[in-house]
């Protein structure tokens, strides 16, 4: 089970958070601390090291895509190589949705990034393994939102 998936850009040594999804209940303060520690650790990694690191009793898997680091924290017995594939799949989904996704897309449309994530993962597990299926669901949800807005004759969100 994945406990956390997050995305941040390097900013000095601590990183600026662009997205974080927790799958385990923890108090707010502890969440902040964990994310802070994790991002510091990942940003401190030298080039040409592998994408995995151990932290406390968790495995951290991270991958850098242009100016963004995508990162997840796993249980000890999870398959790290598959976690890399999961991160990659998520980036692909974002890319498909936004068309050549860049960091600004995720900043200004963060809620969409979450909606997409919620179609891909659930409770820390992979929910759907077909890219197309997820894309279809998101499209349909977006249309539903617009349709209802039109129906209520209120401006679109």
């Amino acid at each position, binding site marked *: 089970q994945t406990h956390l998936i997050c995305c941040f850009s390097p900013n000095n040594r601590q990183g600026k958070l662009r997205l974080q999804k927790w799958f385990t209940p923890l108090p707010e303060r502890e969440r902040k601390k964990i994310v802070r520690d994790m991002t510091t650790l990942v940003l401190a990694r030298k080039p040409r090291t592998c994408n995995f690191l151990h932290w406390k009793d968790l495995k951290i898997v991270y991958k850098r895509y242009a100016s963004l680091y995508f990162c997840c924290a796993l249980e000890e017995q999870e398959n790290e190589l598959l976690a890399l*594939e999961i991160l990659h799949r998520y980036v692909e989904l974002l890319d498909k949705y936004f068309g050549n996704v860049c960091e600004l897309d995720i900043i200004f449309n963060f809620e969409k990034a979450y909606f997409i994530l919620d179609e891909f993962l659930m409770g820390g*597990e992979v929910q759907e393994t077909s890219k197309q299926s997820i894309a279809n669901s998101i499209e349909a949800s977006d249309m539903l939102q617009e349709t209802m807005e039109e129906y209520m004759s209120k401006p679109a969100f």
Partner: protein
Amino acid sequence: MSPSVRLQELIRVIRSARTQCEERGVIQRECAAIREQFRQNDNGGRSHNLAKLLYVHMLGYPAHFGQMECVRLIASPRYSEKRIGYLGAMMLLDEKQDASLLITNSIKNDLSHSSQYVQSLALCTLACMGSAEMCRDLAPEIERLLKASNSYIKKKATLCAVHIIRKVPELGEMFTPSAHSLLSEKNHGVLHGAVVLITELCERNTQTLDNFRKAVPELVQIMKGLVMSGYSPEHNVAGISDPFLQVRILRLLRILGRNNDRASDAMNDLLAQVATNTDSTKTAGSAVLYETVLTVMDIRSESGLRVLAVNILGRFLLNNDRNIRYISMTSLLKIVQTDHNAVQRHRGTIVDCLKDQDASVQRRALELSLALVSSVNIRSLMKELLLFLSTCPPELRAHAASGIFIAAEKYAPSQRWHIDTILHVLTTAGSDVRDETVPNLIQLITSASELHCYTVHKLYRALVTDISQQPLVQVACWCIGEYGDLLLKGDCEETEPVQVTEDDVLDALETVLQSHMSSPATRAFALTATMKLSTRITENVDRIRSIVSIYGSCIDVELQQRAVEYNALFRKYDHMRAAVLERMPVIDKGQTNGEMSANNIKDLEQTDVKIPEVPLPSNQLCLEVCDLLDLLGGSEEPLQPSQAPPSSVPTPSSTGTGQDLLDLLGGVCPAPVPVVTGVTVYEKNGLTVTLQCDQRTETSVTVSLLASNSTDSDITSFSLQAAVPKSVQLQMKAPSGDVVPAHGAGQVTQTVILMNPNKVNLKMRVRVSYSSQGSFCQDTAQIDSFPTTAWS
């Protein structure tokens, strides 16, 4: 201004803030406005406001006042408001907040909504932050949805069920019946969810696990379908058909096959097929292969399959991708004990990984290499390890050094090799070795008597080159002090001859004494070595005398005390000097576990008198390493210098000052050898004294000494005296008598209580005095060990 622009406008404004302070100001103003609008129940802008709040929350600012707004929005009939409301709930609410309970009803309603996208929101939120109570409430709903006809909902309901079981394990029973039937679904999303659900159920309930074993053939079929199927664009990742699903199925098979022959047999062929057919050029394939290997190693697989799995790991080691090399080594580490030979085949590649640039790969390569050391490969492997030691990152040095020592001790092909190896480590990484290295090495050196000359030459050379590595300097000083005469003699077959004069040697020692790099312990070694040389050199004794007297006023109390005592040895006790500074006997090694320690093992097996009987160069009085035994304190009466008749058993001489001077090897204390209770500690002239352990606690031991007599006549005036290390307290109860009857007719027993509050290595020296057949005997026996369980 259109609302959506307002959110994006806010983001733009925040990003353009030049300082943290400015940003904080913008956000505080905005939050105040949002708070106000929440209070006013502004219908139009609610979702936009919440979205803004969520953004601000992500930046790290407090947003708890938005919690109730989430609750309100979730209850709204509008999809857009529900969508952001549920997102807000997942971000701001967790099961600890009271507000989370308030959304339970909304979730319940939405689970039955006509739009599947609304149902999806509810399911997702429940699976993300549902508390145990919410889960209990809504479990029946989820179970109903599991059987729904819509695969979109089914897959989500399945994962929601997984969450429920994680929170409330007892509810597993509710979902077990549906779980199995889900395996016949065609939709990959549902299938994946089903596998996850079954895995969760099996991990929590062994009965369920037994039950689901009958699903193994079905799972095997599904896997086969995935592996053998042609290209399926919908699920293809780098040539692998749905690696996510494959990995989950493999993991489930692992759980089902563990400890069960039948299930393991049923999946054997499939695993072989996956292992051979999966293309591992990309990560997706490697992920599947990795999971396969883990499964093979964990179930009861055939040996052929296991070898296949290890070979896959070996192939991974050669992969260009660093990640794959890393996980390969992690896996090899896990199996190196159980499948040692299979892993040995890949030793070459593993050793190559010692040169990898990634420190975590190097660390694993080091651990693996150390695990693979054997008597066959020790020489070649040690070369690589020593090379690694000189180039490895500093954080790995201590680990490498101690690993090398352990390996060397276990498999050293010769004593000389062993000494060379340790010296090499001390020169390369001397500051990173553990404290007990010094006494261990000294013990090793003393036991290799043929190599004394070679060793002292080598150490002298090392000392002259570099005095910064403390452990090396300490050992070198000790050796020079001990074997200085061999050094001065000049010729040594094993190394090039070098002319060393007495002045050279004393210079070297004085340099150590005066250097600011030398630690206090090192200086103590050097001073004592200098003193010892006074009996091994001929010309420069005066120089030694003056060195020693200078240090009599040294600031360091330890050095000062030694110097004063050595001074006394020069003046008042000069007649004893030669005896006191005699060559040391071979030190008893506690734990021995290598071929080369065979001599010591023989010594230990003789349970007679425990004083090692080693031929010494000039043998008048043999002095034990006695710093641990305070013969002045502890025992009933001080042991006087023995006037025992010359016997084959050398007895220690002990005087007051003698004991203090023999504080030569600060830390040398051989570990106790595991001994069974009822051990014979003395056996001579028909008298047998055995030690029996009556009672032991963490800090005290009660023993009984039993004396029996097998001769024809009684043994009279029998008495025992005992001495123990300084921090231990001794209490001897009255003996049962002082006559040991003949023919083993009776025993004399005496109880001794040892109090060991500091939990030091326990030793006891016992002096036996008795009259037998007209002559008076007095012997000493050393007990180096008490039953090991005393201190476990």
